[in-house]
């Protein structure tokens, strides 16, 4: 990352500003644009926060920037209106497992495409790309049918289980993950793993001892991407889960019932469940940035 980015502005080097110092017009454009964008980004977050602190009868009232009254009851009630904790754990398990598995599968596939010549490679990459285009609606019911049939014939319960959802989400993020990792692996000099193979590692040894460590940032980036894909998906989760396996994305809808919509609790719950994710993002941001770079560009 670019903290050392800039040509140093050593005072003695030139009388004028350093050659690449931004002109005033640029600084002002930057200030104005970034302020606008920050406002655009944060306004909904502010609305969530302020609404989450109001009693139900106030939330549905006219919006005002400064709330009239505060109540932290919503933050207490969210846990009993729906089994929020269970949904949260489900989401973590599903999104966590799906993203890790997706990346592992993608690593193998990307390594194969990046390092070998074989027949059908082109068909494979094109097919993988094209799966990004499927409208979800087209295969929701067929997929459900397949899961149930697998369940009936093998006894492995995919429908209603976290396993089924994990499998589904895994494949959702797989195409883009493979795509990105191919690019990333290509950027790692082949000499490295060839050397490892000469030293007696098998191809898998070379993959895990040389290529994967060199690609850690990209792998982290792909994992995060896969995690977010699974974290937010609604349509499949609404059909494929039951009360025990329901994920947050669907579960949050439980705050709106036939006659009541608990706006304040929806907002409170959304903020609460987002905190760990945002925190995770913060921790991994450094890798994410570096990873995307290499994956996409090199």
């Amino acid at each position: 990352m670019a903290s050392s980015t800039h040509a140093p502005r050593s005072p003695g080097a030139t009388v004028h500003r350093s050659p690449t110092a931004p002109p005033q017009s640029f600084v002002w454009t930057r200030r104005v644009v970034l302020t606008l964008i920050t406002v655009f980004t944060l306004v909904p977050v502010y609305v969530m926060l302020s609404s989450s602190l109001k009693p139900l009868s106030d939330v549905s009232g006219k919006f005002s920037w400064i709330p009239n009254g505060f109540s932290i009851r919503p933050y207490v009630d969210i846990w009993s209106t729906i089994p929020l904790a269970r949904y949260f754990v489900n989401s973590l398990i599903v999104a966590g497992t799906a993203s890790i598995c997706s990346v592992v599968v993608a690593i193998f596939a990307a390594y194969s495409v990046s390092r070998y010549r074989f027949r059908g490679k082109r068909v494979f990459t094109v097919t993988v790309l094209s799966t990004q285009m499927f409208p979800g609606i087209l295969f929701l019911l067929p997929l459900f049918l397949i899961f149930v049939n697998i369940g009936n014939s093998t006894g492995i319960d995919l429908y209603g289980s976290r396993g089924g959802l994990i499998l589904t989400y895994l494949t959702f993020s797989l195409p883009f993950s493979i795509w990105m990792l191919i690019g990333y692996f290509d950027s790692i000099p082949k000499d490295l793993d060839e050397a490892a193979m000469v030293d007696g590692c098998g191809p898998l040894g070379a993959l895990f001892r040389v290529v994967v460590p060199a690609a850690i940032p990209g792998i982290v980036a792909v994992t995060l991407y896969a995690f977010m894909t699974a974290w937010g998906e609604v349509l499949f989760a609404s059909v494929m889960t039951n009360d025990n396996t329901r994920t947050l994305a669907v579960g949050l809808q439980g705050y709106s019932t036939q006659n009541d919509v608990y706006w304040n609790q929806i907002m409170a719950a959304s903020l609460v469940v987002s905190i760990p994710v945002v925190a995770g993002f913060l921790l991994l941001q450094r890798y994410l940035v570096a990873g995307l770079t290499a994956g996409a560009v090199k």
Partner: protein
Amino acid sequence: MTATDTTSQVPQAAGDDVLKSGGARGRFPRIPDRIRRGGLPYLLLLPALVLELLIHILPMIIGMVMSFRGLTQFFIRNWSNAPWTGLHNYRVAVDFDAPIGKALLHSFYVTLGFTLLAVGLSWLVGTGTAVLMQENFRGRGLLRTIFLVPYALPAYAAIITWAFMFQRDNGLVNHVLHDQLHITDKPSFWLIGDNSFYALVIVAIWKSWPFAFLMVMAALQNIPRELYEAASIDGAGLWQQIRKITMPSLRPVNQVLVLVLFLWTFNDFNTPYVLFGKSAPESADLISIHIYQSSFDTWNFGSGSAMSVLLLLFLLVVTTVYLIFTSRGRKTSDG
């Protein structure tokens, strides 16, 4: 041109592989290649292949079969009883003089307009912000974190909050536009009527620009500083540097980014569904919602599948053309 040195490897990266992966890799060592040629590459691909076949390809084929059948509620219990109707579902879907085809075409245009606007603006905001933040300044880290927040909030929560803000009588948007700034002479509707299209675009941009920002920001880290220094010694101003150095270097990442954003936005289901419920206003009747309605709400899965297949074909054509076009353009510019 020095600028091209950094990007000249790119054709081997992501996008291009798809087009001409196959035989282009003569530089691999021959010995391991020949030995392993038999099984290993396939073995490595196997998990991905099985999963794709099982979860994507097979259901899609079933979906395609469905589209040739009159799969209404009378038959969903036992699909094999549904009558074969040949191209009937397709004929209904593309009969643009009849109400159903007309509605589909309308929905298609709306989606196209929505996608172009949302992707274009998301890309613009994302790229613009990333370029502005290329240099270090105070608060850069904080801003970067803030900008990732829309990406981390659960989609349902974020969109329902927007719906909350777009309410006519009690929402923030009208509070600001009407009560505080007095721009409109009466409160406007955002969730019904013509404005709903813009509401949809705004939410879509809010949701997807951070992704564009991330990708571009990442790509910018790879541009060697020397390029800028060299350019500035040659007398190029900052804006010129952005045009001459930054933008060309972003080409490869943009190729991937724009395509992915396009596909996601075009198929976006969550945003309209949470924002408008199961019947979107005419001006914001996205195709994903339209197909959902044509299959789930009317229980006619045959017809819904036919529309999905048409959509898939369209996206395939667009993607192919896009990839050929952008790859060729890049090659010539790279020299």
